[in-house]
């Protein structure tokens, strides 16, 4: 029994079948990659996991509880954090403030009116945020306005914001898309380190096979909204069905 | 039955004004994506176009009629409007009498020009800024425009009477009398609305604009310069609001803050109709006008006191909560 259990999930948009009969089991403390050609339904699946979409059929269980019908913030409070394809950060706030918000969410839950305490008095949280920023090599940018950062830095910040919550499951939606090679390698190193250091399960959607094969313990190939194969990375390489699905795709 | 018809008729003239203003408002929103709080001011400027024309036509010169004396025994001074001396008293008098309908001809170019200037000079810098900024800057513009009018024409309402022939009441059926000018106003607004729809429906220009309303980016990708057409649409919307104002003068004497008074209601109308939906705006305009008129019936007020004051807002609140895209709005517009 994995920490994330997706059973018979189907989703239609109008007449279009985006997902059908998706079954997926992600074991605890592993990295599970979901790959597949464009339009295979990867992002739709991800949206079903975090409460942005509600599947038409099937069930999604996380840690023994159903996530269906819960709103995104409730699902996050269950222990799922998500990194977006285009970085979603608080662009109007400073880097440090960006880090404080997930820490408050983790400590105080979805809502607490603490209107007269001071953010600058939260020493433990600030130290925690600084440690995390240090881990992603951004401590020197702590005072910076988030909007002023490079795209790569925004991604790293978003990742740090998710990791600082110490989630049980981290969902990554193409975390290296548009990154330079060096940045990609840094991200891979960071993720490997996190995997080794923490009790964390990672589900990753990725186009870059280099990233996938460096990280994944198991791989699911999605095509036309249905899982094609699920296996160990070494078995996926050169799998005839996968080749078939990807043929013509430039990768 | 008579009561019913009378109430519907009563609702039509206000509804016509709502529909015309809301039409322009939603046209601007649909094409340019701008929330224009200065639209009420355009309506007001339209009304003052007819005030201006009326004053212009009444410009007079003085002559001394030696044959008569006034009550002090001095020679009588007679004021003759220039138009009367140019066209003769009969023709000139008729021109002055018909100054409100004539103001339509005058208002169209003026309003289109004002619309152009507004769009090119101010609004276009706000396309990419948040809606809140658009609301704020056009709100400021509305204040400026109404203060300019106040500086020229003062704070008191100015009568702009309807032509002699079109004032008075008509008996539509037994027991139903109705002011003629309100019938004229209704027909006029139907004609303007029809004109705008026909323009959008049957001209290439209108087709591009409609396509742009549906999907601005795609139309932009086709290499069509959508911006120029949208500027023209702003002028058109301004003209529609202005015409609504010109003809509204005889119903309610124009004053400088009539724009603000109508603005809130027209926004409510647009929201009820559905942001960016032209038929929605027209439908909601008439519906709310008629609804308001029914709510003003004594029987209804006795039943629910004060309902006539709040009915429109109440409907708007319910619609916004139950059906946020309004009666005919497309899904996903500013939700």
């Amino acid at each position, binding site marked *: 029994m994995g920490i994330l259990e997706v059973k018979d999930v189907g989703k239609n948009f109008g007449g279009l079948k985006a997902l059908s009969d998706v079954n997926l089991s992600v074991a605890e403390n592993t990295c599970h990659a979901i790959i597949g050609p464009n339009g295979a339904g990867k992002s739709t699946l991800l949206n079903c996991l975090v409460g942005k979409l509600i599947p038409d059929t099937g069930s999604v269980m996380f840690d023994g509880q159903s996530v269906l019908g819960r709103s995104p913030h409730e699902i996050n409070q269950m222990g799922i954090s998500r990194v977006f394809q285009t970085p979603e950060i608080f662009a109007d706030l400073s880097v440090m403030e960006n880090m*404080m918000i997930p820490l408050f969410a983790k400590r105080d839950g979805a809502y607490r009116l603490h209107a007269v305490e001071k953010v600058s008095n939260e020493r433990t949280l600030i130290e925690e945020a600084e440690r995390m920023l240090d881990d992603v090599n951004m401590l020197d940018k702590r005072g910076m306005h988030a909007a002023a950062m490079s795209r790569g830095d925004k991604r790293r910040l978003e990742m740090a914001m998710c990791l600082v919550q110490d989630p049980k499951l981290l969902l990554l939606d193409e975390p290296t898309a548009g990154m330079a090679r060096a940045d990609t390698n840094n991200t891979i190193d960071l993720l490997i380190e996190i995997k080794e250091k923490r009790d964390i399960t990672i589900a990753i959607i990725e186009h870059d096979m280099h990233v996938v094969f460096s990280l994944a313990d198991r791989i699911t190939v999605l095509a036309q909204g249905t899982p094609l194969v699920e296996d160990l990375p070494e078995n996926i390489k050169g799998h005839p069905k996968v080749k078939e699905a990807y043929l013509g795709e430039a990768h | 039955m008579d009561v019913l018809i009378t109430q519907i008729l009563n609702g039509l003239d206000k509804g016509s004004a709502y529909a015309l203003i809301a039409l322009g408002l939603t046209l601007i929103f649909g094409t340019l994506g701008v929330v224009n709080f200065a639209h009420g001011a355009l309506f007001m400027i339209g009304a003052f176009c007819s005030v201006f024309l009326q004053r212009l036509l009444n410009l007079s010169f003085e002559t001394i009629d030696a044959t008569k004396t006034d009550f002090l025994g001095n020679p009588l001074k007679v004021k003759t409007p220039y138009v009367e001396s140019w066209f003769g008293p009969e023709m000139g008098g008729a021109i002055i009498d018909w100054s409100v309908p004539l103001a339509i001809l005058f208002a169209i170019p003026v309003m289109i020009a004002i619309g152009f200037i507004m769009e090119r000079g101010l609004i276009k810098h706000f396309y990419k800024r948040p809606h809140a900024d658009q609301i704020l800057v056009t709100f400021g513009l509305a204040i400026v425009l109404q203060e300019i009018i106040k500086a020229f024409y003062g704070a008191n309402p100015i009568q702009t009477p309807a032509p002699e022939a079109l004032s008075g009441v008509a008996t539509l059926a037994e027991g139903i009398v109705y002011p003629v000018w309100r019938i004229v106003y209704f027909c006029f607004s139907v004609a303007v609305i029809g004109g705008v729809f026909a323009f959008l429906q049957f001209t290439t220009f209108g087709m591009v604009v409609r396509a742009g309303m549906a999907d601005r980016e795609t139309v932009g990708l086709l290499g069509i310069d959508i911006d120029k057409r949208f500027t023209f649409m702003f002028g058109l919307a301004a003209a529609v609001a202005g015409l609504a104002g010109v003809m509204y003068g005889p119903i309610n004497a124009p004053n400088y803050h009539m724009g603000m008074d109508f603005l809130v209601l027209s926004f409510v109308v647009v929201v009820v109709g559905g942001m960016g939906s032209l038929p929605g705006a027209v439908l909601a305009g008439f519906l709310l006008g008629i609804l308001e008129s029914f709510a003003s019936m004594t029987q209804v007020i006795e039943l629910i006191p004060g309902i006539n004051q709040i009915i429109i807002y109440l409907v708007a609140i319910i619609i916004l909560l139950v059906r946020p895209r309004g009666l005919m709005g497309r899904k996903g517009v*500013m939700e």
Partner: protein
Amino acid sequence: MFGLDKKDTSLLWVVIALTMLAPFILNPFPTGSGMAQFNAGYPDLMQRFVIFGIFAIGFNILFGLTGYLSFGHAAFLGVGSYSAVWMFKLLSMNILPAIILSVAISGIFALVIGFVSLRRTGIYFSILTLAFAQMSFALAYSVLTPITNGETGLQVTLDDPRVLGVSATADGSIPVTNLFGLEMRAAYDLVVGPWTFTFSVGYYVCAIVMLLAFYLAIRIFRSPFGLMLRAIKSNQQRLNYTGLNPKPYTLAAFVISGMYAGLAGGLMAAMDPLAGAERMQWTASGEVVLMTILGGVGTLIGPVLGAGMIKYFENIFSKINDNVLHSWFSFLPDGIEDFIVLVIHPFVGKGWHLTLGLIFMLVVTFLPGGLVEGGQRIARALRKKKEDEPKSPSTEPAE
């Protein structure tokens, strides 16, 4: 000090000094001089400065922090005024229970309206608040006449019960508002040479309330709650996926700002015990929007400056008529003098709204941070000149 960091403490001290010394600062011209009519240091106007300051501070907590633009906040101010006057009628002329009731009632009112309005965002939220406010206004004028006294407005009268006070004073007049016997109307005139400075009890009560309100606003800005509100403005999606529910936060901000408005309304009634429906009209809501934007939305001190500026325009700037202009420009040759007066005329005196509208448009277009941003830019430019070397732009968060 006060649990604030150094920068905020000095800001608070500046505001304390300004409000406490306002009777001096606003009265620069000697009594009897030609300029005396431009003195703003009389109690009535100073009270309005700080009361509208409170209103704008509260509005800024909603609009400045969360970005939700309400066009109906005047409704809460009106509700506050009505509640206070009712307290004067029924209980006593002591302003304390009246103000407490205004804040409480407007808070409840804001809770209901906010709960409904906040189900929508953006322009829809603005229009919902606008519709609610207009409804309240229309109802106050018509159906609710037993509570609001309709067009006449609600006033204290001689036959009010006032269970804890007296219906009428010994000499048969209506008792005045007071704070445990300290009459709001009481004032002390200090005459220094040609100057007269008036210190009114009412003003200082309002000023102290405003300082408390300002202090609380600073605390909110610096609190985790304030951070969440700014996060809501910045990116609601991220906030959702970070495990936070934005709704209770925005609702809390809405209610707090509604209570600030109620406080302002209550104080208004405490200074002059009457309440009218026109305080609730949407143009009055527009005014607080103007104040906040002009001063600097999202900044601490901005709304107070904006409120002061608009009230100064309304009461002092509007006094500049042609005679005054002629006397100012009398040193010029006649023709030029007349011409300049002619040019300036539409913008001053009764035309003050025009100037205000133009300034507002300029601020929205070029200075989104209002007067505060303008001040900061000037300060930065001066600093740059002094140091004569390029400096990286500062990254400190908004103050």
